[in-house]
């Protein structure tokens, strides 16, 4: 198994690692039992623009790299644009992932959507999108 240079770059120099104290949306997905957890923090302005985005991830190299890439892809974009981010776009941006690691990109997509759902709830907007829960039912 070999990672692309992009994956290794994001693994060794992850962008946007950290927390946002007064985040407008926070999403946590995955579980320790399965070996990966992603936590996303979003700061969103009154125009629905994601002005800041940070993450913390417990997981393999691919989990860290996909989290990092996902934050880069949504930072500065609107909530509507962020909702359109798919896991395959993250994989593509990383120049591919080994097949066994594709689930990490699914987790990154879920983490963002979960944080956005949290934001919707906070501002009283109905959550009109679905979040695929890849780890549910895995015992």
């Amino acid at each position: 198994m070999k990672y692309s240079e992009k994956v290794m770059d994001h693994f060794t120099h992850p962008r946007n690692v950290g927390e946002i104290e007064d985040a407008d949306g926070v999403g946590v997905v995955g579980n320790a039992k399965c070996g990966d957890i992603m936590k996303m923090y979003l700061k969103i302005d009154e125009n629905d623009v994601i002005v800041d985005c940070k993450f913390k991830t417990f997981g393999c190299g691919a989990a860290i790299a996909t989290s990092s890439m996902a934050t880069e892809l949504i930072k500065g974009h609107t909530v509507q644009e962020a909702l359109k981010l798919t896991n395959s776009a993250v994989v593509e941006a990383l120049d591919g992932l080994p097949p066994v690691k594709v689930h990490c990109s699914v987790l990154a997509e879920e983490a963002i959507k979960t944080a956005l759902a949290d934001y919707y709830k906070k501002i009283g907007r109905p959550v009109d999108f679905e979040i695929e829960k890849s780890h549910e039912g895995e015992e």
Partner: protein
Amino acid sequence: MAKYVYADNASTTPVSKEVIDAMMPCFETCWGNPSSLYEKGRDAKDLMDDARERIAKVFNAKANEIYFTSCGSEADNWAIKGTALKMREKGKNHIITSKIEHPAVLNSCRALEKLGFKVTYLDVDEYGVVDLDMLRCSITENTGLVAVMFANNEVGTIEPISEICDIAHAKGALVFTDAVQAVGNIDIDLSKLPVDMLSLSGHKIHAPKGIGMLFIRRGVNIANLIDGGAQERRKRAGTENVPYIVGLAKALEIAKEKLDDIPRVRKMRDRLISELTKIPYSKLNGSRENRLAGNVNISFEYIEGEGMLLWLDIAGIAASTGSACSSESLDPSHVLLAMGVPHEKAHGSLRLSISHETTDEDIDYIIETLPGIVKKLRDMSPLWEEVEKAKIKN
């Protein structure tokens, strides 16, 4: 030159110069088929016979008890499936093994279950030692084979093979032990240790990959797995891999000589364990004393093993992990889980396996490098964040 420390000797080892030198004539001049009657064939056969004699001597066994195979996995498969097929003739259909065996053993047993054999997988304690009471309780007149590894490849636990032989033989069952990891670490005298079968693999002891061996004690009769020509006294067909057989003999002789150096390896291992378990929220997996001289296996909480391996690789250190991410399955190491290590700690396990080629400087380098890597990964772990926050609150 950039620093390079190979600490994955339980995975494989480099072929030593002496082994290469011993093999070269088999490629260059004595390349005949040992079954041929003419001189080239006879020369090859002489080399092979000599290798078999020397290997027998290493283990205090007889040359006609040594059978060469293509790898350790084949030897494991043969011992288990060959015994199963034979014992069925006597109306026996029960096999006992342990939960922490190598996949070559576990999956052989699973394959036999599909054919109607009954298999008991013995529990292990928190250190990875098989439960002898469970063995005593589960063994019956119907048990034809007890297969327990000599030493575990992940946590280095050394199993009580002698006692297992006593229990099994009292019930008329054969004993097979996978000694792939034990060889080169422990002196094995097969005139004293009454196992019926023992497997080993060349590439763990500085011989090439693709050569293994099964010791089958005289009088023990198991079915063939590889049918064909009359090689290996009609027990294992296939033109013999003379160069690798010669290489294996050399490697085993050297490994036996180097047993004198084991206390030094153990000292380096103990230094690694002492220093690395000083990292907060770390725990040694397996026993402190009852473990292979070169094996270190430590779980670091709140991080995942693959990340550690990648950073170690960047630092020039080769190691391995029991995390699911490296296994291409969702579950972490079956060995750690059987020992009762929780999933999340198994994901954060790191195995360092050193050898007599490892130096004190290598150990220093690992001790200097690892804490920074653990910290770096924890700093980006949401689980660690919770630990830190809880600390501030208290």
